[in-house]
């Protein structure tokens, strides 16, 4: 209901939403690996421009998309801070006591910041444009070759689906319990760190108890409907790899090539 930012599916119709999840996962994997092959700011800017275009294509409001980046802002700031302060490469730009800022440090800081931000943006585009169930189906398919070596691809995907499915449920439950304890005079965010941690006990205990009860219920419900693992199981939504999915892969490779070559 409320705004859960990191990895929230944003349900609108767009060319990105309608792509095969497998294609999208491959594109993201390609780009994620590719981002570590780029060592120039110009290269990152090219990829950033491409990601910008993709955001527009995805019809996700820019404001909401930027929210995805907020949780990593701290990590980015910290990375830049350390790179700028502790790197001694290149010409000295600033000297103040024992603090020295070098051109190489600034450049490296910027590179790392761009790399992290782009990684999160690309991953965010995937989760924002792909329903969690489709995502898990895609992962199952991509992992299925590993079934030959007895890797439990179906079980892993089912676990992911269930985990994803229950994030909002647990979130809702946590909200309810928090409200119930607040009605009994619980205060969160008051006092020192120890008191704050202790204030969480009245929430975490019932939340855990509830999660176990729910897991039991779910297992029973699944068994009573005849679930017995992936063998011979069909799907309601069949994934189909279309031409546009191939185009998406080509586009991802082109973006990457442009970034590396610039």
């Amino acid at each position, binding site marked *: 209901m409320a705004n859960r930012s990191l990895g929230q599916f944003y*349900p609108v119709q767009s060319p990105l939403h309608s792509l095969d999840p497998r294609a999208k996962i491959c594109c993201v994997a390609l780009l994620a690996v590719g981002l570590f092959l780029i060592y120039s700011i110009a290269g990152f800017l090219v990829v950033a421009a491409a990601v910008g275009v993709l955001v527009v294509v995805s019809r996700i409001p820019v404001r909401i998309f930027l929210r995805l980046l907020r949780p990593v802002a701290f990590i980015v700031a910290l990375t830049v801070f350390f790179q700028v302060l502790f790197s001694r490469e290149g010409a000295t730009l600033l000297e103040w006591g024992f603090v020295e800022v070098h051109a190489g440090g600034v450049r490296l800081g910027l590179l790392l910041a761009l790399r992290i931000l782009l990684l999160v943006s690309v991953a965010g585009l995937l989760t924002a444009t792909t329903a969690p169930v489709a995502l898990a189906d895609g992962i199952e398919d991509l992992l299925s070759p590993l079934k030959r070596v007895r890797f439990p691809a179906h079980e892993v995907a089912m676990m992911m689906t269930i985990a994803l499915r229950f994030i909002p449920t647990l979130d809702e439950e946590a909200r309810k319990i928090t409200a*119930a304890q*607040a*009605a009994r*005079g*619980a205060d969160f965010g008051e006092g020192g760190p120890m008191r704050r941690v202790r204030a969480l006990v*009245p929430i975490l205990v019932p939340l855990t108890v*509830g999660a176990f009860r729910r897991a039991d219920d779910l297992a029973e419900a699944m068994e009573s409907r005849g679930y017995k693992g992936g063998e011979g199981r069909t799907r309601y939504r069949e994934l189909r790899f279309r031409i546009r999915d191939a185009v998406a892969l080509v586009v991802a490779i082109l973006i990457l090539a442009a970034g590396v070559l610039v």
Partner: protein
Amino acid sequence: MRLELRDVRHVYGRGTPFEVEALRNVSLAVEPGEVLGIVGGTGSGKSTLVQHMNLLLVPTSGTVVVDGVDAATLKKSELRRGVGLVFQFPEAALFAPTVEEDVAFAPRRMGLAETEVSERVQGSLEMLGAGHLAGRSPFALSGGEKRRVAIAGVLAMASEILILDEPTAGLDPATRQDLLSLVRGLRDAGISVVLVSHDLDEVAEAADRVCVMERGEVRAIGTPAEVFYADLANAPATVRVGAALKVAYSNVGTPVRYGETLAALRAMLED
């Protein structure tokens, strides 16, 4: 304590694709020492409404007024002490190792002396007929016992207004009856009770006034007789019997409670 909601509107998930207007233009008052029943279908805004009464939810627009003072200006902790709220399925929030400690949570948070705390714990557990459970683990109790304990945990705040959101949902008839007599007992002790329920018979039995919610709005508010006789399709069984009696027997009045309807039926048979 008199609690008033003025023109309260609430929107969930503002500015997201999941935006829902859960309440609109809701104005009503909880008078001192009354039982106000709130009825309505699922999704009619009952639960959202009661969470505004102690400002667990803040109105998107409109105000909540306590004894003539805007509740937003009061200290939240004091407001929540004065207006006790028992959520739907309150047993989901039990957490302490023993029943006693769980019920003691709220009075301890109020900073009461230990003797006063244990008095309140005993007192409220006994009001719910759960005094014998004090030393048990709340997780090892039956559903009905858990419910009793969870309600005692809010009752221990000794609030002037007690809100019960679907207190009888999923309970056996005996526990149900006990809870309804608790509601009447509290009212007789001068405490206002807001009873949210979709069980019309139960509301007819306990409420002094009834408020009907529909799609986030107050559709009707008044005495049970006024509200229920105006809309027989959504009236409790006792009222439907009363209305049917009226056809043959005009001076049946407007019985609402089970006892009243029974008396009217007797009078008609004796005639």
